[in-house]
């Protein structure tokens, strides 16, 4: 079988034509393949008009492009277009649930379960909701290998006070792939709703939101080879229908009078104002790009890269890797610390070699506190990476040790 690794060189990412660029920051944002840039330009150059209610041919073309984009996006993750709400980003998708679903379903004395490894985007909205209604947060601990315990989840669920379990599919720091089907099933059995943050999962592993069965599944376009400015909320229809609108205004209404308004059907009820039309079209092209490679092959490729990175990094004295020991337990990213240098200095020196990694708290300050770290350096992988990129990372880390090691 031809691996993506072998075809990786043939993949067309214009930005990688920059000299020597070793891009290992796809968990922050992915680079964009030419097919996505082409789709964006083609729409804006040849089909652009506002969507909904236009009657001239160009407007109908724009409607068609937009609808196809949403259908492609939904199909890629096994969701229904009507249950696929387009937002600004994953953060807004979570906030939509927090504001629209939260107040009617979480009250004083109730509880919300999160993991210690959540991104701030899946912490702060729930903290705010809890503060507002007098509910409490319960934190699923991550162990030394970055794993959560389903037994602890059961303990949390036992008293029947938990109304929401919100868990990341794949940790953006530890890389841990969480057992989300199990989490969702246990939450549902205990009468709690569930939300899965799939931002680090959708572009890297087969995700079927229908099979996972969460009440809400969110992700973002720009980490999935698409443009910024588009996020997704897939919700179960009965949940979405029971929820009041989030933002209100144009597009999300059926009728408006001087006194009141009635609201549009799904998914438009939750899409106030002009949506990110070109971004939807381009993200449609992006998921087609992934589907064209084959998500199973993408996963296999990134697992090879991750395993190679783990083995090479482990061999560096004074380097500590965070998260699960095995590549198959992880998404395509590795966070680490070096004894001799602060992550920010590491990233700065790597940057001199055009090795692009992220350093900092990765929007997971509670997790950093738990790990006893101020920051880590993170290398994250995508379809265009090869083991050469890992070799470049390791060589550059050698320079860091030369400068900082005693």
């Amino acid at each position, binding site marked *: 079988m031809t691996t993506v690794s072998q075809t990786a060189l043939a993949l067309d990412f214009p930005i990688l034509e*920059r000299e020597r660029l070793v891009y290992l920051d796809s968990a922050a944002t992915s680079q964009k393949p030419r097919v996505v840039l082409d789709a964006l330009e083609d729409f804006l150059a040849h089909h652009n008009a506002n969507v909904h209610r236009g009657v001239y041919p160009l407007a109908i073309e724009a409607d068609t492009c937009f609808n196809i984009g949403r259908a492609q996006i939904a199909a890629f993750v096994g969701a229904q277009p009507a249950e696929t709400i387009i937002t600004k980003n994953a953060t807004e998708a979570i906030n939509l649930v927090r504001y629209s679903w939260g107040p009617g379903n979480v009250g004083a004395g109730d509880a919300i379960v999160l993991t210690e490894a959540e991104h701030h985007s899946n912490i702060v909205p729930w903290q705010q909701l809890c503060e507002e209604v007098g509910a409490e947060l319960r934190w699923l601990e991550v162990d030394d290998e970055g794993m959560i315990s389903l037994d602890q989840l059961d303990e949390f669920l036992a008293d029947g006070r938990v109304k929401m379990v919100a868990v990341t599919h794949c940790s953006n720091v530890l890389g841990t792939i969480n057992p989300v089907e199990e989490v969702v099933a246990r939450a549902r059995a205990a009468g709690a709703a569930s939300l899965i943050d799939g931002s680090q999962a959708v572009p890297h592993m087969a995700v079927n939101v229908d099979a996972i069965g969460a009440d809400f599944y969110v992700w973002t376009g720009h980490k999935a080879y698409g443009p910024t400015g588009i996020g997704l909320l897939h919700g179960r229809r009965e949940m979405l229908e029971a929820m009041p609108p989030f933002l209100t205004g144009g597009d999300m209404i059926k009728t408006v009078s001087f006194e009141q308004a009635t609201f549009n059907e799904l998914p438009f009820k939750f899409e106030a104002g002009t949506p990110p039309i070109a971004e939807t079209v381009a993200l449609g092209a992006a998921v087609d790009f992934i589907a064209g490679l084959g998500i199973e092959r993408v996963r296999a490729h990134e697992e090879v890269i991750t395993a190679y990175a783990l083995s090479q990094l482990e061999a560096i004295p004074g380097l500590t890797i965070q998260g699960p020991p095995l590549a198959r337990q992880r998404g395509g990213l590795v966070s680490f610390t070096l004894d001799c*240098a*602060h*992550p*920010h*200095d590491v990233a*700065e*020196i790597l940057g001199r070699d055009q090795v692009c990694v992220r*350093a*900092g*708290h990765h929007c997971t300050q509670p997790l*950093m506190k738990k790990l006893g*770290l*101020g*920051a880590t350096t993170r290398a994250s992988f995508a379809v265009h990476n090869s083991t050469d990129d890992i070799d470049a990372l390791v060589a550059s880390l050698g*320079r860091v040790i*030369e*400068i*900082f090691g*005693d």
Partner: protein
Amino acid sequence: MDDALYREEILEHYKRPHNFGPMEKPDRESFDTNPLCGDELHVMLKVDDGDVVEEVRFEGHGCAISQASASMISDEIKGMKLDDLARLDRSAILDLLGIDISATRMKCALLSLKVLKSAAIGTLADWEPDTADAARPAGGAPL
């Protein structure tokens, strides 16, 4: 290895910081963080009856730029009046570092100055480092 940002003096201050450690009953102190790097800095001062700095200690952790700049400036402010300390501007630090600082690292470089000024003023300085005139990226990469 020759590296402009991590020149020998800066690395020396980072690895073996001056005036580092706790202080019993400081007369003035201040604490702040730089969320970008996760840097934390706690500065403690002893001053005499004329509000002149007699002793300075700092504690914290962070990147080489923030920790080295704290170490370097700590050597400079002994004998300085609190009023003068409160009036120090960014050049005090940038001259000591003697290197080009990129926009993203300016907050690292200036954290120690901010915390020292806060200690001198007695409240968290209402002062954010202006990064507008930070050095442009070198290397000819298109911006």
